[in-house]
């Protein structure tokens, strides 16, 4: 074999010009293939690591309140965060909120996204570097968001600050809807300005998470969106998301309430009873309320109704706690009828799910028994008619599914909070699809190029075989087997292809280095989202590059098979007699 390798190498050197021309074509093809693959990988990585991870985290827990997708609050459930942080491969869990807002400055107003920054979050060196890379500061620093001497310190992008006509030290207003849907205005102190790495990063308006929670009428017990940062996210994200979803399986919801008439009141518990059309039919059949089941009504336990002297059609007041302003959380409900609670659920009123969950959303509930035990006892007979703590939405494997689910979360049909778990690879599945499509397009283009190149290889080899017919005859006469002749030609082509491919890879590396040094001034251009601070990003992969080299060599060897076999088939006598 060693001799064959030497022969093959010598043959390449014997026909330098031909080898150089053929090799150059193959090197260019390889260079283009590696370049295009690395560029597509660069786009994909930029979108995932610099955009998607900020939009979706490696794994995200999305919460919405009864059809309001921009009311990110699961009231009183902040302890879930600690449980999720203990899962394997979870580096940390970060609370996050992105609120659509209107910024009003000295000159004019503009839309933005109010984002809370958790300043207590411990970040790795890489995450800190990524943050610095994405949000290089022109003035101030992110630490200024915690300044105690200012009401709400804020950081803006340079272009937004210029548009609004504000500079560090200036005040500007921001209008937004809080977590209960109220129109709010806050006056922010601009303490920092950053130059975004790409146009996507232009919109954020950063404030500290603690202050944003206060602005949103939330407190430390309320759970906003959660973003989980994972070790080796690409491999672990889906499995962790499945685990998170299992952990977030909801229980049935309960609420201690006070039910009052104009003359008296009694304390009890409430469960939410669903009011969708199917549930209404079932309630009417199973519990037989006197005036039918529908929104705005309550079914009282028989003994409680008797004690209060209320009848079907009467209105009762149901109070469940206190609002942030100190008002009693009070609702009125029409008594639909009475029911006989099973053992263990005495005093349990069945309340229209919408009103029930609305009352539940206030953090200050009546003291005493939570009523969970009573509701669980009632579940034996009412099961799916009862309202859960929240509705856990199904996983969404594709970007389209995520988009559909986002719309579903905003529908009025939801009477309970909703929770969804996603990975950024599912949310950004369209990016992966796009990358795969670009790779296929590149591959097809390169295959066409190689078809031309390999036609040249075949032609060259046929000429070579013809030119070396007498030499083949000599070698065969000296004892070389037919199979060795075939291998000799295949090795010659393979070596040429390998050297060309390696040259192509080196060339691609040089081109990538050169292109990545160019700085494109495309601030505001949507294409800037594909770059990092105006520079193109290439991500060559070792495995993909090896695969590309193997493909080039394999195709060349395959193309050489025919001429090589023809050379091997020559009889030594005929070959020695051959004259041009």
């Amino acid at each position, binding site marked *: 074999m060693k001799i064959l390798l030497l022969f093959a190498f010598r043959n390449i050197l014997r026909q330098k010009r031909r080898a150089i021309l053929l090799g150059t074509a193959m090197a260019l093809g390889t260079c283009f293939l590696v370049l295009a693959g690395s560029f597509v990988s660069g786009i994909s990585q930029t979108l995932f690591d610099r955009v998607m991870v900020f939009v979706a985290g490696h794994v995200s827990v999305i919460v919405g309140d009864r059809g309001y997708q*921009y009311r990110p609050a699961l009231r009183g459930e902040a302890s879930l965060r600690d449980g999720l942080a203990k899962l394997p491969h979870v580096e940390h869990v970060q609370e996050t909120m992105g609120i659509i807002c209107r910024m009003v400055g000295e000159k004019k107003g503009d839309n933005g996204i109010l984002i809370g920054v958790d300043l207590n979050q411990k970040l790795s060196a890489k995450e800190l570097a990524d943050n610095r890379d994405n949000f290089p500061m022109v003035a101030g620093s992110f630490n200024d968001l915690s300044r105690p001497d200012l009401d709400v310190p804020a950081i803006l992008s340079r272009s937004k600050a210029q548009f609004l006509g504000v500079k560090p030290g200036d005040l500007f*207003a921001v209008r937004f809807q809080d977590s209960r*849907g109220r129109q709010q*205005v806050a006056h922010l102190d601009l303490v920092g300005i950053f130059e975004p790495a790409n146009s996507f990063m232009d919109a954020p308006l950063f404030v500290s998470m603690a202050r944003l929670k206060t602005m949103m009428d939330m407190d430390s017990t309320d759970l906003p969106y959660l973003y989980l940062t994972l070790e080796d996210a690409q491999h672990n994200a889906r499995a962790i998301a499945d685990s998170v979803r299992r952990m977030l399986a909801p229980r049935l919801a309960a609420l201690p309430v006070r039910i009052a008439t104009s003359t008296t009141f009694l304390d009890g518990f409430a469960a939410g009873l669903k009011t969708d059309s199917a549930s209404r039919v079932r309630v009417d059949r199973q519990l037989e309320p006197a005036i039918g089941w529908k929104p705005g009504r309550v079914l009282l336990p028989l003994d409680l109704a008797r004690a209060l002297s209320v009848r079907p059609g009467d209105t009762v007041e149901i109070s469940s706690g206190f*609002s942030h302003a100190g008002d009693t959380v009070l609702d009125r409900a029409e008594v639909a009828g009475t029911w006989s609670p099973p053992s263990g659920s005495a005093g349990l009123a069945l309340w229209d799910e919408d009103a029930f969950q609305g009352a539940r959303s206030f953090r200050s509930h009546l003291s005493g028994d939570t009523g969970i035990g009573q509701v669980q006892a009632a579940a034996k007979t009412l099961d799916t008619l009862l309202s859960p703590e929240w509705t856990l939405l199904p996983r969404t494997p594709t970007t389209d599914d995520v988009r559909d689910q986002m719309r579903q979360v*905003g529908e*009025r049909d939801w009477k309970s909070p909703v929770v969804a778990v996603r990975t950024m690879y599912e949310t950004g599945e369209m990016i992966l699809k796009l990358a795969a499509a670009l790779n296929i397009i590149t591959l097809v283009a390169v295959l066409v190029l190689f078809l031309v190149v390999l036609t040249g290889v075949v032609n060259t080899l046929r000429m070579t075989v013809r030119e070396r017919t007498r030499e083949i005859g000599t070698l065969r006469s000296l004892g070389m087997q037919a199979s060795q002749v075939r291998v000799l030609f295949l090795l010659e082509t393979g070596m040429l292809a390998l050297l060309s491919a390696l040259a192509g890879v080196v060339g691609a590396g040089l081109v990538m280095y050169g292109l990545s040094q160019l700085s494109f001034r495309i601030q505001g251009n949507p294409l800037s989202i594909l770059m990092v601070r105006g520079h193109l990003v290439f991500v060559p992969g070792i495995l993909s590059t090896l695969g590309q080299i193997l493909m080039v060599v394999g195709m060349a060897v395959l193309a050489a098979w025919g001429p090589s076999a023809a050379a091997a088939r020559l009889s030594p006598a005929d070959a020695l007699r051959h004259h041009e």
Partner: protein
Amino acid sequence: MKSIAAILLAMTFSVFATPPDGHAILKALETNETLRDDLHAEVSLTEVRTGQGAKIMKCEYYRRDSDKSFVISMTAPESDRGNGYIRQGEHFWMYRQNTRTFQHVTRDESIAGSDAHGSDFESRPLTEMYTPSLDAQGHELLRADTIGGVPCWRLEVRAVISDVDYPKKTFWVRQADLLLAKDQSWSTSGTLMHTGYYTKYEPIAGRQFPMRQLQVDEVEKGNRTLVDLDGVKVGKLDADIFTKAWLESHSK
């Protein structure tokens, strides 16, 4: 556009001659917002945005309170002509004429690119949302005032539930007939957010309708919307109007 929700939910009428009492004023305003009959009106909105000039939007509005239904069919500007919105009970759809598709409108979604959201069309009785504010002595914050020379009662109210746009509002109602003359809305932090002026009422079918109102954005100075009603008709409307098929055929 936000004012579409406000005006269409606040078609005021009736005459009240009760003595000034905060709860009575709120009840009067609430009663004014309730329609027993169906309604059709042509609505024109002139939106003025700082640095952007004026944008005129026109639509036909059909409303049926008995089942919380309404239909909005856009007639101007040309780019929006044929688009529309339909609400049936708890379902709210947007219709796009160019794609001939209906898309569910979420509660947080902006309507026609304006600052109105899907949830703005979900009304609750005023007295369930607000109660008169009291001073330190426990008296209602209610006093006489004038708006454009017209004697009014000025009433400050606060929200008793959290799910409201504004936790604090001030109403000026005309002393003569308790019709709304002006209102102001405040944020939790006490910032004036919005002022509405109701400048022209007309009697239609025995009721007073606010034919013209001006909604002023107090946060983004210079932004305002003038709302004009025309062709108001009260009475039973064809049930077919409140269907997707009608909106689709009407937009052709």
